């Protein structure tokens, strides 16, 4: 009488494909996954607590360290929340520069997604190609703010420094390169039969499940829910641009991948419009040297690369926030991991980690 036994495989926190220090306890029956439990906290730095002892201005660089591959989006979220709390009007040129930077960073972050996904699927070449193109964006950030990843460029009331002509010119160059870049990716992986066989109809998240888990960002849009905060809230200058929200149908890995590919094109479209209509004017609003927002609380959400990034700030009228809470999209999205992995093979679990695209800096905060 043959007898089989289930066993638990600890993937991570040191594992070639768990995107940082995520630990997943995968329960296996042979190679079939019965359950997958994410265990996090290995990168917990207590940013929410740290912010309580810093002034509002000093808090901004900490948001870089949340989702360190899309730092600009985090800066944007925090600064907009503080601006909402303190009632600061941001000049139009600053809004445009913010949009350009945030969208560039979205592309860069999707590059990381594509790179890590292809690497997890066993094609290191794809990773190098994606990172090669990401490097171009990081170089742009190096021009505009002097740092490549932890930008700390978007500040409360505007941006740190004006966008130089060099930056705008190079951005234009990059935008012109985007179609060629996407074409190369499509040729190398999207059209590849092995790639498709691994991605299609695996780790499906249905519309209902996505809503149930409170997912957001590309992950929920891949399941066919039209939920893009840039479109809904029209925060910053996003209301002035014309762009589509790509939606998936099945909610499988393939949709989650294609959504991001399409989003790169949409982001490029937004940047192109922002570059064409760039207004002149100041890049920074008049912000008091010592910022004391009135007593109260504010919640502001932005569309981060990974979904709905919200900052809840409580002010007690002093120079330091009384409490900052960050609603991190990949933290919430990670709840779906168990459902995604169930019934799949071990190799699919790796794909599922990659397509859900968690970033441990953000998950652990």
């Amino acid at each position, binding site marked *: 009488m043959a007898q089989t036994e289930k066993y638990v495989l600890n993937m991570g926190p040191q594992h070639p494909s768990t995107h940082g220090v995520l630990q997943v306890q995968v329960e296996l029956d042979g190679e079939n996954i019965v359950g997958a439990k994410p265990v996090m906290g290995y990168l917990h730095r207590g940013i929410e607590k740290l912010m309580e002892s810093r002034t509002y201005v000093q808090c901004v660089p900490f948001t870089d360290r949340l989702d360190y591959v899309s730092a600009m989006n985090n800066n944007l979220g925090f600064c907009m929340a503080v601006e909402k709390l303190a009632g600061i009007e941001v000049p139009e040129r600053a809004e445009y520069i913010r949009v350009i930077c945030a969208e560039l960073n979205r592309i860069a972050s999707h590059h990381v997604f594509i790179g890590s996904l292809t690497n997890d699927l066993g094609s290191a070449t794809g990773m190098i190609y994606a990172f090669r193109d990401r490097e171009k964006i990081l170089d742009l950030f190096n*021009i505009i703010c002097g740092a490549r990843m*932890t930008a700390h460029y978007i500040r409360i009331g505007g941006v740190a420094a004006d966008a130089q002509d060099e930056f705008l010119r190079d951005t234009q160059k990059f935008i012109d390169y985007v179609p060629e870049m996407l074409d190369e990716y499509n*040729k190398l992986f999207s059209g*590849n039969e092995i790639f*498709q066989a691994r991605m299609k109809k695996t780790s499906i998240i249905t519309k209902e499940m996505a809503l149930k888990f409170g997912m957001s960002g590309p992950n929920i849009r891949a399941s066919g829910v039209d939920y893009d905060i840039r479109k809904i809230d029209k925060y910053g200058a996003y209301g002035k641009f014309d762009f589509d929200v790509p939606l998936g149908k099945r909610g499988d890995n393939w949709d989650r991948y294609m959504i991001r590919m399409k989003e790169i094109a949409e982001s490029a479209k937004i940047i192109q419009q922002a570059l064409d209509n760039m207004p002149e004017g100041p890049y920074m609003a008049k912000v008091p040297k010592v910022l004391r927002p009135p007593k109260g609380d504010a919640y502001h959400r932005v569309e981060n690369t990974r979904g709905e990034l919200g900052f809840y700030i409580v002010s007690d009228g002093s120079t330091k926030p009384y409490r900052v809470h960050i609603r991190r999209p990949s933290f919430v999205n990670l709840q779906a991991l168990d459902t995604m992995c169930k019934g799949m093979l071990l190799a699919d679990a790796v794909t599922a980690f990659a397509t859900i695209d968690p970033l441990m800096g953000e998950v652990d905060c």
Partner: protein
Amino acid sequence: MWGKGLITGMKVTWGHWFGKKETVYYPEEKLPMTERFRGGHLAFDEEKCIGCKLCAIGCPNAALDLTVSVDENKKRHMESYVHQIGRCMYCDLCIEACPTKAISWDKNYEFASYFKEDMTYDALVEARNRRGNNE
């Protein structure tokens, strides 16, 4: 279908086989640093500094450790300007806080070290050495 995608993929990689390489021979060939680049040690200008300590106040992580002395004319002098790189997160807030632009980045990114102690240095001593070398 039917392996067409595989062949186009192979064409793509073949196209890069003899093409231009993206990487450089690093120590011989260095990438240029941009004008706004934040990194390296702090280049301190003793003459411009008025000893107001705004940089240290603005620092989110208390990476700057300054001692200031006041002379008989009520003029403030910097005695030491210790920068702990291990704590620094290169947010640029100290440089922006400076009213006289007395500090800037020296943009030298090659300061990797075997010892933790090398991560703490006195920008004042370094500035004096630098001036001494130039003279």
